[in-house]
Protein backbone atom coordinates (compact mmCIF):
# COMPACT_ATOMS: atom_id res chain seq x y z
CA UNK A 1 0.00 0.00 0.00
CA UNK A 2 2.77 2.42 1.06
CA UNK A 3 4.91 1.36 -1.91
CA UNK A 4 2.03 2.00 -4.28
CA UNK A 5 1.51 5.47 -2.77
CA UNK A 6 5.22 6.22 -3.14
CA UNK A 7 5.12 5.11 -6.76
CA UNK A 8 2.17 7.43 -7.43
CA UNK A 9 3.93 10.34 -5.72
CA UNK A 10 7.13 9.74 -7.70
CA UNK A 11 5.11 9.64 -10.93
CA UNK A 12 3.37 12.91 -9.96
CA UNK A 13 6.76 14.52 -9.26
CA UNK A 14 8.04 13.39 -12.68
CA UNK A 15 4.92 14.81 -14.32
CA UNK A 16 5.39 18.11 -12.45
CA UNK A 17 9.04 18.32 -13.59
CA UNK A 18 7.98 17.59 -17.16
CA UNK A 19 5.19 20.21 -16.95
CA UNK A 20 7.68 22.81 -15.67
CA UNK A 21 10.03 22.03 -18.56
CA UNK A 22 7.11 22.38 -20.99
CA UNK A 23 6.15 25.70 -19.38
CA UNK A 24 9.73 27.05 -19.64
CA UNK A 25 10.06 25.84 -23.24
CA UNK A 26 6.65 27.31 -24.06
CA UNK A 27 7.69 30.65 -22.58
CA UNK A 28 10.93 30.66 -24.58
CA UNK A 29 9.07 29.71 -27.79
CA UNK A 30 6.46 32.43 -27.15
CA UNK A 31 9.29 34.94 -26.63
CA UNK A 32 11.07 33.98 -29.88
CA UNK A 33 7.86 33.84 -31.92
CA UNK A 34 6.70 37.21 -30.53
CA UNK A 35 10.12 38.75 -31.29
CA UNK A 36 9.93 37.49 -34.89
CA UNK A 37 6.36 38.77 -35.30
CA UNK A 38 7.32 42.10 -33.69
CA UNK A 39 10.14 42.47 -36.22
CA UNK A 40 7.81 41.75 -39.14
CA UNK A 41 5.02 44.01 -37.81
CA UNK A 42 7.08 47.09 -37.02
CA UNK A 43 10.75 46.49 -37.81
CA UNK A 44 12.49 49.13 -35.72
CA UNK A 45 13.13 52.73 -35.08
CA UNK A 46 15.61 55.11 -36.67
CA UNK A 47 19.05 54.21 -35.51
CA UNK A 48 20.91 57.22 -36.88
CA UNK A 49 20.20 60.92 -37.20
CA UNK A 50 18.76 61.75 -40.58
CA UNK A 51 20.98 64.02 -42.64
CA UNK A 52 20.24 65.98 -45.80
CA UNK A 53 20.56 64.00 -48.99
CA UNK A 54 23.45 65.24 -51.16
CA UNK A 55 23.83 65.62 -54.92
CA UNK A 56 25.46 62.73 -56.82
CA UNK A 57 29.27 63.05 -56.79
CA UNK A 58 29.45 62.85 -60.60
CA UNK A 59 27.10 65.84 -61.04
CA UNK A 60 29.07 67.93 -58.54
CA UNK A 61 32.36 67.00 -60.23
CA UNK A 62 31.10 67.91 -63.73
CA UNK A 63 29.98 71.38 -62.60
CA UNK A 64 33.18 71.93 -60.64
CA UNK A 65 35.34 71.05 -63.67
CA UNK A 66 33.22 73.39 -65.78
CA UNK A 67 33.69 76.20 -63.27
CA UNK A 68 37.44 75.58 -63.16
CA UNK A 69 37.73 75.66 -66.96
CA UNK A 70 35.76 78.91 -67.13
CA UNK A 71 37.83 80.49 -64.39
CA UNK A 72 34.80 80.92 -62.18
CA UNK A 73 36.47 78.81 -59.54
CA UNK A 74 40.21 79.04 -58.83
CA UNK A 75 42.08 75.80 -58.29
CA UNK A 76 43.07 75.15 -54.73
CA UNK A 77 46.60 76.29 -53.94
CA UNK A 78 49.06 74.63 -51.63
CA UNK A 79 49.69 76.65 -48.47
CA UNK A 80 53.10 78.40 -48.34
CA UNK A 81 55.89 76.29 -46.87
CA UNK A 82 56.74 76.89 -43.28
CA UNK A 83 60.36 77.66 -42.43
CA UNK A 84 61.84 78.32 -39.06
CA UNK A 85 63.89 81.43 -38.60
CA UNK A 86 67.61 80.76 -38.24
CA UNK A 87 68.72 81.45 -34.75
Amino acid at each position, binding site marked *: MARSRERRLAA*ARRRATFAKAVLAAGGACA*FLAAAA*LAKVTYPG*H*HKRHSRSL*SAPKRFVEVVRQ*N*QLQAGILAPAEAPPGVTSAPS
Partner: protein
Amino acid sequence: MHVTTSPVDWYAARAAGIAAYLLLTTVVCLGLTMAGRKRLERWPRFALEDVHRFGGLLVGSFIVIHVVTIATDAYLPFSLAAIIVPFVASYRPLFTALGIVAAELLLALAVTNHYRARLPYHYWRRAHYLNFGVWTGATVHGLGSGTDRSTPWLLALFAAAVAAVLAATASRFRRGGVLAGGIAVAGVALVVLLAVGPLRFTPRPWNAQAFDGVLTGHVLQDAGSTRALVSAAATADGKQRALIRADLLIEPHKLDATSFQLEFLPSGMLCNGHVTRVQSFGFDATCRAQDGTRRIVHARWSVSPDSSFTGSLSVHA
Protein backbone atom coordinates in the same frame (compact mmCIF):
# COMPACT_ATOMS: atom_id res chain seq x y z
CA MET B 1 19.78 54.07 -18.34
CA HIS B 2 19.53 54.60 -22.11
CA VAL B 3 22.49 52.49 -23.13
CA THR B 4 21.61 50.81 -26.43
CA THR B 5 20.15 51.69 -29.82
CA SER B 6 20.05 48.09 -31.07
CA PRO B 7 16.67 47.11 -32.57
CA VAL B 8 17.12 43.69 -30.95
CA ASP B 9 16.53 45.40 -27.60
CA TRP B 10 13.20 46.74 -28.80
CA TYR B 11 12.06 43.38 -30.18
CA ALA B 12 13.08 41.76 -26.86
CA ALA B 13 11.08 44.35 -24.88
CA ARG B 14 7.91 43.71 -26.86
CA ALA B 15 8.36 39.93 -27.00
CA ALA B 16 9.09 39.66 -23.26
CA GLY B 17 5.88 41.55 -22.47
CA ILE B 18 3.86 39.19 -24.67
CA ALA B 19 5.55 36.05 -23.29
CA ALA B 20 4.98 37.28 -19.70
CA TYR B 21 1.29 37.88 -20.44
CA LEU B 22 0.79 34.42 -21.98
CA LEU B 23 2.54 32.74 -19.06
CA LEU B 24 0.52 34.83 -16.58
CA THR B 25 -2.67 33.67 -18.29
CA THR B 26 -1.51 30.04 -18.07
CA VAL B 27 -0.64 30.43 -14.38
CA VAL B 28 -3.99 32.10 -13.59
CA CYS B 29 -5.87 29.28 -15.36
CA LEU B 30 -3.79 26.71 -13.48
CA GLY B 31 -4.54 28.49 -10.20
CA LEU B 32 -8.28 28.44 -10.96
CA THR B 33 -8.07 24.70 -11.70
CA MET B 34 -6.30 24.11 -8.37
CA ALA B 35 -8.79 26.20 -6.44
CA GLY B 36 -11.74 24.08 -7.59
CA ARG B 37 -12.95 21.20 -5.50
CA LYS B 38 -12.43 18.75 -8.29
CA ARG B 39 -9.45 16.49 -7.65
CA LEU B 40 -7.34 15.09 -10.47
CA GLU B 41 -6.13 11.51 -9.95
CA ARG B 42 -2.81 11.94 -11.75
CA TRP B 43 -2.16 15.47 -10.46
CA PRO B 44 -2.03 15.70 -6.65
CA ARG B 45 -2.22 19.21 -5.21
CA PHE B 46 1.52 19.46 -4.36
CA ALA B 47 2.44 18.75 -8.02
CA LEU B 48 0.02 21.40 -9.31
CA GLU B 49 1.32 23.91 -6.74
CA ASP B 50 4.89 23.18 -7.81
CA VAL B 51 4.07 23.93 -11.46
CA HIS B 52 1.98 26.98 -10.45
CA ARG B 53 4.86 28.42 -8.38
CA PHE B 54 7.39 27.77 -11.16
CA GLY B 55 5.06 29.47 -13.66
CA GLY B 56 4.90 32.53 -11.39
CA LEU B 57 8.71 32.70 -11.34
CA LEU B 58 8.80 32.51 -15.15
CA VAL B 59 6.27 35.37 -15.38
CA GLY B 60 8.46 37.46 -13.06
CA SER B 61 11.56 36.68 -15.15
CA PHE B 62 9.93 37.84 -18.40
CA ILE B 63 8.59 40.98 -16.69
CA VAL B 64 12.15 41.79 -15.57
CA ILE B 65 13.36 41.36 -19.19
CA HIS B 66 10.45 43.56 -20.39
CA VAL B 67 11.25 46.36 -17.93
CA VAL B 68 15.05 46.25 -18.29
CA THR B 69 14.99 46.24 -22.11
CA ILE B 70 12.56 49.21 -22.11
CA ALA B 71 14.78 51.07 -19.63
CA THR B 72 17.95 50.49 -21.67
CA ASP B 73 16.53 51.37 -25.10
CA ALA B 74 17.82 54.83 -25.99
CA TYR B 75 14.89 55.47 -28.34
CA LEU B 76 12.08 54.97 -25.82
CA PRO B 77 11.15 57.92 -23.58
CA PHE B 78 11.21 56.07 -20.24
CA SER B 79 13.32 57.29 -17.35
CA LEU B 80 13.86 55.12 -14.26
CA ALA B 81 11.11 57.06 -12.45
CA ALA B 82 8.73 56.62 -15.41
CA ILE B 83 9.22 52.85 -15.21
CA ILE B 84 8.70 52.59 -11.45
CA VAL B 85 6.15 55.32 -10.60
CA PRO B 86 2.68 55.19 -12.23
CA PHE B 87 1.58 58.25 -14.29
CA VAL B 88 5.11 59.68 -14.59
CA ALA B 89 5.59 58.27 -18.12
CA SER B 90 4.53 60.57 -20.93
CA TYR B 91 3.67 57.65 -23.24
CA ARG B 92 -0.03 56.71 -22.81
CA PRO B 93 0.12 57.41 -19.04
CA LEU B 94 -3.01 55.47 -17.99
CA PHE B 95 -2.14 52.25 -19.84
CA THR B 96 1.53 52.42 -18.88
CA ALA B 97 0.49 53.01 -15.24
CA LEU B 98 -1.73 49.91 -15.34
CA GLY B 99 1.27 47.82 -16.41
CA ILE B 100 3.45 49.30 -13.66
CA VAL B 101 0.77 48.75 -10.99
CA ALA B 102 0.18 45.16 -12.20
CA ALA B 103 3.91 44.34 -12.06
CA GLU B 104 4.34 45.89 -8.61
CA LEU B 105 1.23 44.14 -7.30
CA LEU B 106 2.59 40.85 -8.64
CA LEU B 107 5.84 41.50 -6.76
CA ALA B 108 3.89 42.20 -3.55
CA LEU B 109 1.89 38.98 -4.01
CA ALA B 110 5.13 37.05 -4.56
CA VAL B 111 6.24 38.30 -1.12
CA THR B 112 2.98 37.10 0.47
CA ASN B 113 3.50 33.71 -1.23
CA HIS B 114 7.03 33.50 0.18
CA TYR B 115 5.71 34.10 3.71
CA ARG B 116 2.55 32.05 3.20
CA ALA B 117 3.30 29.67 6.08
CA ARG B 118 3.61 32.60 8.52
CA LEU B 119 0.45 34.39 7.37
CA PRO B 120 -3.13 33.55 8.44
CA TYR B 121 -4.62 31.44 5.61
CA HIS B 122 -7.65 33.70 5.04
CA TYR B 123 -5.32 36.72 4.74
CA TRP B 124 -3.12 34.98 2.16
CA ARG B 125 -6.13 33.70 0.23
CA ARG B 126 -7.76 37.13 0.00
CA ALA B 127 -4.46 38.67 -1.09
CA HIS B 128 -4.07 35.90 -3.68
CA TYR B 129 -7.36 36.95 -5.31
CA LEU B 130 -5.60 40.20 -6.27
CA ASN B 131 -3.89 38.14 -8.99
CA PHE B 132 -7.09 38.71 -10.99
CA GLY B 133 -6.31 42.42 -10.71
CA VAL B 134 -2.76 41.76 -11.95
CA TRP B 135 -4.05 39.80 -14.93
CA THR B 136 -6.76 42.41 -15.74
CA GLY B 137 -4.21 45.24 -15.45
CA ALA B 138 -1.80 43.37 -17.73
CA THR B 139 -4.58 42.75 -20.28
CA VAL B 140 -5.64 46.42 -20.47
CA HIS B 141 -1.96 47.51 -20.43
CA GLY B 142 -1.24 45.32 -23.47
CA LEU B 143 -4.41 46.30 -25.34
CA GLY B 144 -3.88 49.99 -24.64
CA SER B 145 -0.16 50.56 -25.00
CA GLY B 146 1.49 47.67 -26.85
CA THR B 147 3.21 48.62 -30.11
CA ASP B 148 1.70 45.56 -31.82
CA ARG B 149 -1.79 46.04 -30.37
CA SER B 150 -3.38 46.69 -33.75
CA THR B 151 -2.09 43.46 -35.32
CA PRO B 152 -4.49 40.54 -35.83
CA TRP B 153 -2.06 38.04 -34.29
CA LEU B 154 -1.79 39.92 -30.99
CA LEU B 155 -5.51 40.63 -30.84
CA ALA B 156 -6.12 36.90 -31.38
CA LEU B 157 -3.76 36.12 -28.48
CA PHE B 158 -5.55 38.59 -26.20
CA ALA B 159 -8.96 37.24 -27.22
CA ALA B 160 -7.85 33.63 -26.55
CA ALA B 161 -6.35 34.61 -23.18
CA VAL B 162 -9.47 36.49 -22.05
CA ALA B 163 -11.70 33.61 -23.20
CA ALA B 164 -9.54 31.05 -21.33
CA VAL B 165 -9.50 32.98 -18.03
CA LEU B 166 -13.24 33.79 -18.13
CA ALA B 167 -14.13 30.17 -18.93
CA ALA B 168 -11.83 28.90 -16.15
CA THR B 169 -13.37 31.39 -13.71
CA ALA B 170 -16.90 30.26 -14.62
CA SER B 171 -15.86 26.61 -14.15
CA ARG B 172 -14.21 27.45 -10.83
CA PHE B 173 -17.50 28.75 -9.49
CA ARG B 174 -19.26 25.64 -10.80
CA ARG B 175 -20.90 27.42 -13.68
CA GLY B 176 -19.37 25.21 -16.33
CA GLY B 177 -20.74 23.98 -19.61
CA VAL B 178 -22.78 26.29 -21.79
CA LEU B 179 -22.47 29.29 -19.46
CA ALA B 180 -18.65 29.05 -19.37
CA GLY B 181 -18.65 28.89 -23.18
CA GLY B 182 -20.98 31.90 -23.37
CA ILE B 183 -18.79 33.91 -20.98
CA ALA B 184 -15.69 33.03 -23.03
CA VAL B 185 -17.38 34.20 -26.24
CA ALA B 186 -18.43 37.43 -24.46
CA GLY B 187 -14.77 37.94 -23.48
CA VAL B 188 -13.64 37.56 -27.09
CA ALA B 189 -16.34 40.02 -28.18
CA LEU B 190 -15.21 42.50 -25.51
CA VAL B 191 -11.58 42.37 -26.73
CA VAL B 192 -12.67 42.87 -30.35
CA LEU B 193 -14.98 45.78 -29.39
CA LEU B 194 -12.22 47.48 -27.39
CA ALA B 195 -9.71 46.97 -30.21
CA VAL B 196 -11.95 48.46 -32.90
CA GLY B 197 -13.54 51.04 -30.58
CA PRO B 198 -11.97 53.11 -27.79
CA LEU B 199 -8.56 51.41 -27.95
CA ARG B 200 -8.31 51.54 -31.74
CA PHE B 201 -4.75 52.20 -32.88
CA THR B 202 -3.46 52.86 -36.38
CA PRO B 203 0.33 52.76 -36.45
CA ARG B 204 2.35 54.91 -38.84
CA PRO B 205 3.24 53.03 -42.00
CA TRP B 206 6.72 51.57 -42.37
CA ASN B 207 8.30 52.21 -45.81
CA ALA B 208 4.82 52.80 -47.25
CA GLN B 209 4.11 51.71 -50.82
CA ALA B 210 1.89 54.74 -51.37
CA PHE B 211 1.48 57.95 -49.40
CA ASP B 212 0.85 61.69 -49.66
CA GLY B 213 2.74 64.37 -47.77
CA VAL B 214 3.38 68.06 -47.32
CA LEU B 215 6.68 69.19 -48.86
CA THR B 216 8.93 71.85 -47.34
CA GLY B 217 12.29 72.55 -48.96
CA HIS B 218 14.44 74.80 -51.09
CA VAL B 219 15.85 75.06 -54.60
CA LEU B 220 19.65 75.22 -55.01
CA GLN B 221 21.66 76.24 -58.06
CA ASP B 222 25.35 75.79 -58.79
CA ALA B 223 26.26 77.15 -62.24
CA GLY B 224 29.41 76.91 -64.34
CA SER B 225 29.87 78.48 -67.81
CA THR B 226 28.13 75.76 -69.80
CA ARG B 227 26.89 73.40 -67.07
CA ALA B 228 24.66 73.92 -64.07
CA LEU B 229 23.34 71.81 -61.27
CA VAL B 230 19.79 72.64 -60.16
CA SER B 231 18.54 70.77 -57.12
CA ALA B 232 15.41 70.57 -55.03
CA ALA B 233 15.82 69.20 -51.48
CA ALA B 234 12.83 68.80 -49.18
CA THR B 235 11.27 66.99 -46.26
CA ALA B 236 7.86 65.38 -46.59
CA ASP B 237 5.61 65.31 -43.53
CA GLY B 238 2.47 63.26 -43.12
CA LYS B 239 1.70 59.67 -42.20
CA GLN B 240 4.97 58.57 -43.81
CA ARG B 241 7.83 61.01 -43.24
CA ALA B 242 10.54 61.19 -45.91
CA LEU B 243 13.46 63.19 -47.29
CA ILE B 244 13.61 63.80 -51.05
CA ARG B 245 16.19 65.28 -53.38
CA ALA B 246 16.04 65.80 -57.15
CA ASP B 247 19.17 66.93 -59.07
CA LEU B 248 19.24 68.13 -62.68
CA LEU B 249 22.56 68.44 -64.54
CA ILE B 250 21.86 71.02 -67.26
CA GLU B 251 23.66 71.97 -70.46
CA PRO B 252 22.45 74.98 -72.45
CA HIS B 253 19.00 74.07 -73.79
CA LYS B 254 19.44 70.45 -72.77
CA LEU B 255 18.98 68.22 -69.74
CA ASP B 256 22.19 66.21 -69.48
CA ALA B 257 21.33 63.89 -66.59
CA THR B 258 18.99 63.62 -63.62
CA SER B 259 19.03 61.96 -60.23
CA PHE B 260 16.31 61.37 -57.64
CA GLN B 261 16.65 60.16 -54.05
CA LEU B 262 13.98 59.42 -51.46
CA GLU B 263 14.80 58.39 -47.89
CA PHE B 264 12.01 56.85 -45.81
CA LEU B 265 11.90 57.97 -42.18
CA PRO B 266 12.36 56.60 -39.63
CA SER B 267 13.64 53.43 -41.32
CA GLY B 268 16.37 55.17 -43.33
CA MET B 269 15.62 53.01 -46.40
CA LEU B 270 16.76 54.73 -49.62
CA CYS B 271 14.98 54.78 -52.98
CA ASN B 272 17.28 55.84 -55.84
CA GLY B 273 16.21 56.70 -59.39
CA HIS B 274 15.82 59.54 -61.84
CA VAL B 275 13.53 62.42 -62.72
CA THR B 276 11.15 61.54 -65.54
CA ARG B 277 9.49 64.92 -66.11
CA VAL B 278 10.44 68.45 -65.11
CA GLN B 279 7.86 71.17 -64.63
CA SER B 280 8.15 74.83 -63.67
CA PHE B 281 7.16 74.11 -60.09
CA GLY B 282 7.59 70.42 -59.61
CA PHE B 283 8.71 67.14 -61.11
CA ASP B 284 7.83 63.49 -61.57
CA ALA B 285 10.35 60.81 -60.72
CA THR B 286 10.74 57.09 -60.40
CA CYS B 287 13.01 55.13 -58.06
CA ARG B 288 13.82 51.63 -56.87
CA ALA B 289 14.04 51.08 -53.11
CA GLN B 290 16.64 48.96 -51.31
CA ASP B 291 14.03 46.25 -50.78
CA GLY B 292 13.59 45.99 -54.58
CA THR B 293 10.19 47.71 -54.78
CA ARG B 294 9.53 50.60 -57.15
CA ARG B 295 7.95 53.99 -56.41
CA ILE B 296 6.56 56.69 -58.71
CA VAL B 297 6.77 60.18 -57.25
CA HIS B 298 4.93 63.43 -58.09
CA ALA B 299 6.08 66.65 -56.42
CA ARG B 300 4.40 70.05 -56.89
CA TRP B 301 5.16 73.30 -55.07
CA SER B 302 5.08 77.07 -55.03
CA VAL B 303 8.34 78.95 -54.51
CA SER B 304 8.98 81.89 -52.18
CA PRO B 305 11.35 84.72 -53.18
CA ASP B 306 14.10 83.22 -51.00
CA SER B 307 14.07 79.96 -53.07
CA SER B 308 12.32 78.00 -50.35
CA PHE B 309 9.13 76.19 -51.32
CA THR B 310 6.12 74.40 -49.88
CA GLY B 311 3.94 71.96 -51.76
CA SER B 312 2.71 68.42 -51.91
CA LEU B 313 4.21 65.01 -52.52
CA SER B 314 2.38 61.99 -53.87
CA VAL B 315 4.02 58.56 -53.97
CA HIS B 316 2.63 55.30 -55.32
CA ALA B 317 3.96 51.95 -56.41
